[in-house]
């Protein structure tokens, strides 16, 4: 029997004994896509809790299966088949005379990988939390003006170009100093490469404000490498704030979680830096604005005061004058009041006086009148009529009252007037009075 005959026997037996397919849990240790479109893998199983292997097998995904399986798996898990990944695969067992034992993968269940990834992520997160380091990078103050920037990226990556373009062409004219520290940004090599780059940043001795970790955008890429415990622990201990823009649009990685600040894309990372400076520019504008307003306000106040001063002075004077006037008026009114009192008194006194005067005058007049009347009466008493009535008589000669006997001739007709009539008589004789 030749070796070929033996191998054919094994193959035939295997095919007869194990005709169907099996769902198998395994870890990918190698994964290569052939230009023919087939995908070749190596699957392994490690001993429980150890790194040493207890099983290993080659596996193949034929191009006809791979062309559908690859995008579906990526879409659901956010990762490509890659070393370190745990998978649940539907396999057929095969044996080839020349190439030996291998598995043909018909399908892979992405939910198993997702579950495994999630579980491992949770484990790492819990561990970082337990170690008390998970938020340590966030404790660095975000730089006020982050201008000196260390970039960890793959130089050829579109993401790096996007980042640089965004940063350089910013609309504000802010200038940044950038230094690139190249690193492998995907696959199993990435964590170690990124750690090395982070070390180089420190070793450069340049005064960086921030370290940006970016990876090319475009297709949904492998995030697995950023869930690496060693890398993430290192990141928490890093002496500069980290800004990640790892180009994912679904779940974020643990590196995103521990970084100081995490945005989705390299472009967004650049925008974040620009926004920080723009915020400062706004702060300056605000300060300048307030300063200007305050100066204007103070000057306006000053001007107003100066403008108001004459008016104020005038109104002050006017006020004073008014007050003075008021006082004068009050005083004069008081004076008037007082004067009126005096006047009134005087008037009253006058009135009284005049009354008394009048009264006195009246009395005097009355007395006078009385006297007059008396006088009149007494005078009247001496009137011829009154005399006649009293018994006296009046002798008239030739119309004249006789006062003497001398000129009267004898035989003269004389008229003797009495009260009730007159006597006409002829003078017979006259006798002169002799004493």
């Amino acid at each position: 029997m030749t070796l070929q005959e033996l191998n054919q026997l094994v193959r035939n037996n295997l095919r007869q004994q194990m005709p169907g397919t099996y769902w198998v849990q395994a870890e990918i240790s190698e994964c290569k896509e052939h230009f023919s479109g087939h995908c070749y893998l190596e699957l392994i199983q490690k001993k429980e809790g150890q790194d040493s292997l207890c099983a290993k097998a080659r596996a193949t995904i034929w191009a006809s299966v791979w062309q559908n399986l690859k995008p579906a798996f990526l879409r659901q898990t956010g990762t490509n088949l890659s070393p370190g990944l745990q998978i649940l695969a539907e396999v057929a067992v095969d044996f080839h005379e020349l190439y030996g034992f291998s598995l043909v993968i018909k399908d892979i269940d992405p939910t198993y990988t997702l579950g495994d990834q999630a579980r491992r992520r949770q484990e790492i997160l819990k561990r970082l939390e337990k170690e008390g380091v998970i938020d340590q990078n966030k404790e660095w103050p975000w730089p006020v003006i982050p201008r000196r920037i260390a970039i960890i990226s793959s130089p050829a990556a579109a993401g790096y170009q996007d980042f640089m373009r965004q940063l350089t062409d910013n609309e504000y004219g802010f200038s940044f100093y950038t230094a690139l520290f190249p690193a492998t940004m995907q696959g199993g090599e990435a964590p170690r490469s990124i750690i090395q780059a982070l070390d180089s940043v420190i070793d450069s001795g340049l005064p960086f404000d921030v370290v940006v970790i970016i990876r090319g955008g475009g297709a949904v890429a492998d995030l697995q490498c950023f869930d690496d415990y060693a890398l993430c622990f290192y990141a928490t201990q890093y002496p500069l704030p980290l800004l990640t823009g790892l180009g994912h649009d679904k779940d974020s990685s643990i590196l995103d979680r521990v970084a100081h600040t995490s945005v989705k894309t390299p472009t967004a990372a650049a925008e974040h830096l620009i926004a920080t400076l723009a915020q400062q520019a706004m702060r300056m504008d605000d300060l300048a604005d307030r300063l200007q307003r305050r100066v204007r306000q103070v000057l306006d106040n000053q001007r107003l005061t100066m403008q108001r001063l004459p008016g104020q002075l005038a109104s002050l004077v006017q006020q004073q004058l008014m007050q003075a006037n008021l006082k004068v008026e009050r005083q004069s009114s008081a004076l008037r009041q007082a004067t009126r009192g005096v006047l009134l008194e005087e008037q009253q006194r006058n009135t009284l006086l005049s009354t008394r005067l009048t009264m006195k005058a009246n009395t005097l007049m009355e007395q006078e009148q009385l006297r007059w009347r008396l006088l009149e009466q007494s005078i009247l008493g001496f009137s011829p009529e009154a005399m006649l009535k009293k018994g006296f008589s009046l002798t008239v000669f030739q119309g004249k009252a006789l006062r003497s006997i001398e000129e009267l001739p004898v035989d003269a007709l004389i008229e003797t007037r009495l009260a009730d009539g007159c006597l006409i008589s002829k003078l017979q004789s006259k006798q002169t009075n002799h004493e």
Partner: protein
Amino acid sequence: MSESPLTYSQAMQEVEQILAALEKNNPDVDLMSQQVKRAVELLQQCRQKLVETDETIKQVFEQFNPQG
């Protein structure tokens, strides 16, 4: 004039202090013009710090960058 240059944050802080003092008190105009002059100078310095490019620093940084 060997004043040690203020950092960006120090300068901004000083501007804010000047402004706060001006807004709080009724300043004397002469004093105010001095303070405002100082604040404007500081603001200009700060603004400069966002846009100026020191070619020496730039070159030192860029020696890390890939050629081309």
